[in-house]
């Protein structure tokens, strides 16, 4: 998809406002998944604003976000970075065959105690 169209699509899905970002980096400062991410929350915002979206779509970073909303609540500009990360992930997993988790993967991930909640959440986040 054309980068600008893709950007519009991400903004439409997320309802977030990357243009409001003032590059303070507070989202990345607060992110608990920072170390696991190749692209960090502030880079998601910045790269989406610049239409540089392909690298994000292909990065594992989109599966590392915990949707804990710390970046959303602490952002002084109301940008809502977590919603942008989710939008990128959705654009990826909505494509046929792009599910990040399948039913076949589940048995080896299970243990005695794991709550159902974890499974349904993971399915909701990683598959379509």
């Amino acid at each position, binding site marked *: 998809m054309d980068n600008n169209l893709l950007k519009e699509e991400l903004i439409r899905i997320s309802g977030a*406002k990357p243009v409001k970002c003032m590059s303070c980096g507070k989202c990345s400062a607060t*992110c608990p998944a920072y170390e696991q991410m190749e692209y*960090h929350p*502030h*880079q998601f915002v910045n790269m989406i604003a610049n239409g540089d979206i392909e690298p994000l779509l292909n990065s594992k970073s989109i599966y590392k976000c915990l949707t804990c909303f710390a970046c959303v609540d602490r952002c*002084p*500009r109301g940008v809502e970075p977590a919603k942008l990360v989710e939008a990128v992930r959705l654009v990826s997993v909505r494509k046929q065959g792009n599910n990040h988790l399948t039913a076949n993967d589940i048995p080896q991930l299970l243990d005695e105690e794991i709550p159902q909640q974890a499974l349904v959440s993971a399915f909701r986040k990683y598959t379509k």
Partner: protein
Amino acid sequence: MQRIGVFVCWCGSNIAGTVDVKAVAEALKNEPGVVYSANYQYMCSQAGQNMIIEAVKEHKLTGIVVCSCSPRMHEATFRKTAEAAGLNPYMVEIANIREQCSWVHKDMATGTEKAIILGKAAVAKVNLNAPLTPGESPVTKRALVIGGGIAGIQTALDIAEAGFPVDIVEKNPTIGGKMAQLDKTFPTLDCAACILTPKMVDVAQHEKIRIFSYSEVEDVTGFVGNFDVKIKKRARFVKEDVCTGCGACVEKCPMKKIPNEFNLGMNNRTAIYIPFAQAVPKVATIDANACNMIKNGKCGICSKVCTAGAIDYTQKDEIISEKYGAIVVATGFNPISMDKFDEFAYNQSKDVITSLEFERLTNAAGPTAGKLLRPSDLEHPHTIVFVQCVGSRCASCAEKGKEYCSKICCMYTAKHAMLTRDKYPDTEVYVFYIDVRTPGKNFDEFYRRAVEEYGVKYIKGMVGKVSPEGKKLKVQASDLLNNKQIKIDADLVVLAAAIEPDKSARPLATKLTASMDTNDFFTEAHPKLRPVESPTAGVFLSGACQGPKDIPETVSQASAAAAKVIGLLVKDKLKGNPCVARSNELMCNGCSSCERVCPYGAITYEDKEFRMPDRTTKVRRIAKVNPAVCQGCGACTVACPSGAMDLQGFANNQIMAEVDAICK
């Protein structure tokens, strides 16, 4: 019939870019009454004004329409031009084809069409204009300064030096304001007290200045040159003129656990107190909420130890009424509450403080006698993290903080960082910044010195979370330039809290009918050309009540406001606004409707003899407007059931003519 000249201004390309000015001039030529029509690049320039004067003479004009910028900008200019040409200045009308036309419309055809209609409305109005002569009113040669910080002090001193009496109203027990709480000042690092306290003494000793401390403005009526102000002097339970400020009462007061406002609650004071050693007036004040004697009559020690006999537990609030010619607002600022930013743990740890608290911690007269010790355990901090922009530059949709840049934080943080490194070289100092903003004389050099000579570590990025754990504050932050998330174990975290106007400003603005912006900063009459005047005549602005400012800027504005006040007070008489209400006595039936709605009490009634057609005389009650008191709002004109009351300059037939012209 009027002979009207129309002058269409291009305003460079500001108007001509979206309005075909020639077409406008051409179209208006055919309007009734118009005998001359012209256009010019800059109508407000000397050449433009001369063009108007020439045209008035050559074409014997009786009225002028200028199609240009907002009348709020240049109506006064063109009225003076008309006067110079021998016309009555009130024979001028402005069609606002810049702010309300060329700047808000993009398309030439639309802009031109609208400009012509606005011009037609102005022509229609001028056709009905009549020469007006303003009345005169005397000027009370005394100024009121509200707020006794550095802004109020400077303004008061300048006005008093020019020979006019000045009263300062200060809500705290002492003048001095925020500057009295500061340690050093940037970028020169002179000590705040050393440069402020002599000025405070000057104020106290100046024969033209009176200080009403512990007082508030209760009510303001009147108008420029003639304000009537009621000042509430709160009971301090100490006779100001008797107290010597010896401090014996403070020493003996048994209520010793009251949070000390002057040190931002970082230590305690007594119930009877003098805020700080250099306070002006140096008079004790009893905090009625804390004093046992006042609350339940059980104590009275201060009264016993006071050899001067200054204590008076029965003192009551006192209302003082005074007349003033001019009022200066200098209500200043406060740091915002950190409640909505507790990711920085301000409410969770004593060792997370604001920058103003840091000032007190480093001030020799502060709670630690100037030793930098952290509040929780009074140990020397070895790692300090400064966080900039806490609550500044927040988007409105984030629903916390302020949208504006607080302007002073970059510089005072550089100062704090530099002074810390200077005095305690063993201390690591980090400053997290989004941008470092240093536009000011010697400002950037100062900031660079902090980095280059003092080794302050500036890191571009924001702190995300401060987690108090044991004796440490675990700071998690962004280092954007290195694309890293960094973690620092700090001993002290200092937040550069956004500043906001003092809470007393909003109710004061209402009393003064002075306007404010959405952030509760006072608005200026013109953002560039009249920055120290409020749009309300006779009300002037000094210091941070108008917007965030550092000390040099505050002092410049304070002196500028004083100059404006002096310019007003030297006049013996002020020309009023001739656009006042007038009653047509033949139509008036004396019903009192107008009197009831008049906010100024400008309308009175008199009995007047009228000759009737049958040669008898009849006495009727009719309304009379006092033009010196009327401010020209027009409320009475609408209330009048018989249509006798009209407003000069905005008469019924004039406004109706404008409506007709627009709707044609």
